[in-house]
């Protein structure tokens, strides 16, 4: 089986009417993802036994007809801690780490009888845009196995794209949900900073990190955000604002809505086919009765520099905890305590993580703090002000998610600066804490192209409304990969 010909509501009805048991669905899902894992390598850990046991228990209890997600297996990025289920952040330093608690988002899944089927591959500590910096494996793009799935949530995106699961969770610090969604032709949403609890997320950039859903349809995506959103006493940055029903108001209409298209988002370095997809999308929205204005976000071009200073600085601080003492990898044959720290970190972290720690440590160090960290935080304010100005008279912003479709495995992995530049269209959203979506909007040489939609803080409802209208008016989301390609 695969999940191409179904959706959440259809599966839910089958489960409620006992045409399908959670156990059978789980076994079918396991068979599919295990078969795909050789070619696609989306999973670090597949939790076969626990998933089947959980499914049996849910069947025995009975499927709650009011809970759409009861008995549905989903995949979780391996930087979200799961009690008793190895969680690695795709790093050697956490190769044997078994969390003793569940992240808040996992608690919410379990409380709603969702089955965690496995932990997906990512760039080490979510640092990267291709899933190539994983210590364990290289995940391949289902549309073309010689291409990356994007990153850092590449495993979650790839398994949804391959029809292995209905939905997956990822995290997005600078585009790590939206860019892989774009590269694999699925729907990915980074909620507003504060919408979803970060408790139990292995921290990378704490002022930027958010958890969000991957799905094949906009409506299923909204339904999964319904499940994971809300205030959490364990995360003081999680918002106590009321969580609306994100599936309400999906009526296919954007009539009268005012859309902004920033000219900087179609500038140098953006692939011609990507530009065309975005301009076609603008026309689709116009045909649906919206207006589209060209606007300017003048500080966009400084986004990459400011983002990499801030995210690396926060990472260098967050990753101090990995010292080989309380948990994780400890180097062998050490002479003294200092040696434990230095050798465990130097042997336990991969090159990309070391680069970020070095960039962050440098940016925060005496004599450089004002020129780098503080300066970047000031530029961040200007970027936020750019968005505020556009949102004064627009409901949402559209643009490409990434400048190009998926690139080849190994193509950019030796040029970190080039790799960083790929994030130019996604990092501004994290810097401003805004909600953003990527959804299928076209193809370039057989590879999916994503449209990015950006809304005001805590206005995910507009994201979903606009995304749903676009999805109903187009058929890009119904295209599925023939797993293969020129490997």
């Amino acid at each position, binding site marked *: 089986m695969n999940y191409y010909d179904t959706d959440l509501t259809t599966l839910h009805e089958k489960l409620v009417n006992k045409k399908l048991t959670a156990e059978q669905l789980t076994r079918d899902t396991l068979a599919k993802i295990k078969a795909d894992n050789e070619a696609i390598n989306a999973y670090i850990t597949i939790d076969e036994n626990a998933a089947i046991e959980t499914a049996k228990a849910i069947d025995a209890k009975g499927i709650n007809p009011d809970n759409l997600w009861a008995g549905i297996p989903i995949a979780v990025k391996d930087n979200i801690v799961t009690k008793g289920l190895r969680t690695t952040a795709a790093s050697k330093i956490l190769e044997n780490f*078994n969390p*003793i608690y569940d992240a808040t988002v996992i608690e919410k899944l379990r409380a709603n009888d969702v089955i965690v089927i496995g932990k997906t591959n990512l760039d080490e500590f979510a640092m990267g845009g291709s899933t190539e910096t994983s210590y364990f494996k290289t995940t391949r793009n289902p549309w073309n196995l010689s291409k990356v799935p994007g990153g850092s949530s590449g495993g979650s995106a790839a398994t949804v794209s391959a029809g292995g699961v209905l939905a997956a969770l990822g995290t997005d610090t600078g585009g790590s949900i939206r860019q892989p969604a774009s590269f694999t032709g699925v729907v990915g949403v980074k909620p507003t900073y*504060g919408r979803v609890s970060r408790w139990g997320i292995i921290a990378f950039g704490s*002022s930027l990190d958010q958890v969000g859903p991957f799905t094949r349809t906009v409506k299923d995506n909204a339904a999964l955000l319904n499940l994971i959103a809300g205030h959490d*006493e364990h995360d*003081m*940055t999680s*918002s106590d604002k009321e969580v609306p029903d994100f599936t309400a108001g999906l009526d296919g209409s954007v009539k009268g809505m005012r859309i902004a298209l920033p000219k900087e988002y179609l500038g140098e370095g953006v692939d011609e086919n990507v530009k065309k997809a975005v301009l076609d999308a603008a026309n689709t929205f116009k045909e649906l009765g919206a207006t589209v204005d060209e606007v300017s976000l003048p*500080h966009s071009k*400084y986004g*990459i*520099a400011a983002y*990499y*200073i801030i995210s690396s600085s926060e990472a*260098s601080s967050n990753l101090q905890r990995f010292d*080989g*003492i*309380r*948990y*994780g*990898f*400890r180097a062998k044959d*050490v*002479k*003294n*305590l*200092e*040696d*434990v*720290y*230095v050798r465990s*970190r*130097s042997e336990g972290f991969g*090159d990309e993580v*070391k*680069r970020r*720690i*070095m*960039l962050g*440590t*440098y940016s925060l*160090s005496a004599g*450089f703090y004002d*020129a*780098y960290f*503080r*300066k*970047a*935080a*000031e*530029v*961040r*304010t*200007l970027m*936020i002000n750019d968005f505020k100005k556009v949102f004064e008279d627009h409901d949402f912003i559209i643009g490409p998610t990434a400048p190009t479709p998926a690139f080849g495995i190994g193509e950019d992995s030796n040029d*970190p*600066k080039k790799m*960083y530049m790929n994030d130019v269209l996604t990092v501004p959203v994290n810097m*401003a*804490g805004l909600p953003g979506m990527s959804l299928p909007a076209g193809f370039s040489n057989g590879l999916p192209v994503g449209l990015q939609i950006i809304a005001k803080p805590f206005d995910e409802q507009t994201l979903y409304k606009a995304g749903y209208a676009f999805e109903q008016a187009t058929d890009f989301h119904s295209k599925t990969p023939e797993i293969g390609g020129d490997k």
Partner: protein
Amino acid sequence: MANEEKIDKAQVEHVASLAKLEFNDADLGKFTTQLADIMGLFNTLSEVDTTGVEPTFSVTDQFNTMREDMAVNSHEKDALIKNAPDTQDGYIRVPAIIDESEGAN
């Protein structure tokens, strides 16, 4: 200006020591080249006039929240210590802080 300096190997070694990392000679050369390239990108921020602009360190509008001062049972020691790489009698074991091989004379 500090931000016009080009990062060199000595600086990279200094930063590595602050970050509790070490590099062999080949990696030191590679990291110095890559970090200099990326710092060049970072230096473009000096073009932006931020006079009078307040920095943004967090975008949350939540204030710090306090919980009631009540003792709760959270993580148990036995469970916590299972992830430690080296333990003895319920404690985490680490090597001596002072290098014993050097202090032998």
